[in-house]
């Protein structure tokens, strides 16, 4: 009934290659969060804008990002754009797909966060002679980041795990990509993917742990 012998040794020998893949995974996740955060701030501001076109654009982005599968979004970045003549390589397509997704989710988080900051804070800033942008940057943003810090941690964990979808657009250098290559060569599916799963787990633990540490350092008030 159970006709499978575990072969862990070759699997462990592949560990350095997998860890290298893990670095790419982290790289994509971090980049997608950084770019996604910047876009999300813009989307959150746009969704509260007095201009209908800005609100509409933001809502199309957010609705699509949140209500369609991440898989579809990455497919669109790779094959969809490819079919209209924009060819992204797998790495960029995956990064674009996850960034799109992150930005959509984070925009909603930020929109809620912005509403939690009393309008008097902006008024107080403006009354001191600060311009609208300076007030946003110096007074609103720092408070916003504290409010959305833990939801953002959630999102980066999600981003790390989403990178595994890169394999569907042919990415073979991230953790899942490397693991899949090893798998098709050896058919040691269980061993390789078990190790990959443990590495994913450790990465996300590392990230949430560092976030907690950063919060403790950053938010003294």
């Amino acid at each position, binding site marked *: 009934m159970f006709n499978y012998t575990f072969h862990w040794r070759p699997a462990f020998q592949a560990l350095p290659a997998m860890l290298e893949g893990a670095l790419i995974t982290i790289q994509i996740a971090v980049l997608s969060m950084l770019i996604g955060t910047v876009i999300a701030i813009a989307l959150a501001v746009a969704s509260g804008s007095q201009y209908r076109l800005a609100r509409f654009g933001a809502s199309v982005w957010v609705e699509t990002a949140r209500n369609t599968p991440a898989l579809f979004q990455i497919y669109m970045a790779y094959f969809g754009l490819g079919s209209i003549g924009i060819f992204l390589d797998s790495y960029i397509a995956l990064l674009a797909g996850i960034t799109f997704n992150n930005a959509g989710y984070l925009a909603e988080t930020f929109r809620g966060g912005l509403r939690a900051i009393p309008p008097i804070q902006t008024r107080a800033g403006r009354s*001191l*002679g600060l311009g609208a942008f300076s007030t946003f940057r110096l007074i609103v943003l720092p408070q916003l980041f504290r409010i959305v810090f833990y939801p953002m941690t959630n999102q980066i964990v999600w981003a790390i795990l989403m990178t595994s979808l890169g394999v569907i657009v042919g990415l073979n250098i991230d953790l899942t990509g490397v693991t899949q290559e090893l798998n098709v060569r050896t058919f040691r599916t269980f061993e390789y993917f078990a190790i990959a799963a443990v590495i994913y787990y450790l990465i996300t633990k590392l990230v949430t742990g560092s976030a907690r540490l950063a919060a403790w350092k950053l938010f003294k008030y």
Partner: protein
Amino acid sequence: MIEVENVQKKFGLLEVLKGVSLTVEKGEVVSIIGGSGSGKSTLLMCINGLESIQGGRVLVDGIDVHAKDTNLNKLRQRIGIVFQQWNAFPHLTVLENTMLAPRKVLGKPKEEAKAVAIAQLEHVGLVDKLDVYPSKLSGGQQQRMAIARALAMSPKYMLFDEVTSALDPQLVSEVLDTMRLLADEGMTMICVTHEMGFARDVSDRVAFFHEGVVEEIGPPSQIFGKRSKSPETKKFLANVR
């Protein structure tokens, strides 16, 4: 000099200011009293351009606050304002709160801004709280910090919007004392207040607001004394005392 000429302000259909005129001379302390919703606070917001107006005009040192080409960020440097609501910046220490505008608006070097801030915090009696975050301050201390923060910009005018209304009774006097001190130093002030004692003792003139107009304005002895001409003023004062 602050000149308010026939100012009208509407929030949607609600007409809050129905043609308010008021002139405040240099060095003068004018208190504005009146019931809730009479437009007192709204007028202050219109004076520094935080609220738009629908009619009339406001001149500060001859500059039309609501003209299209007026640089409000620059104009607001001469008008300090302290609000009723909690408005300390929670992510900055007392010193950082007070240094922020001199640094970022006036572009002062760090050390200079720090010296200005410390001088003003000393002024309001908070020099022992420099590195404390606002959440650790009492309401009265927060309001005094807000006063120091506004003063750090060396404003020519100070506007006070019911700054003691949200405070516990025992904290009111420390804030009023700070305001008295400023008045004694010759600061030009407009104080929206429910503290009748303060209005009577400190003001050069008192304006009574009623339903969006200045019902009566005059020296405290007139408004609070028997010479008050307006029955509305008498009714209001009879109720608050």
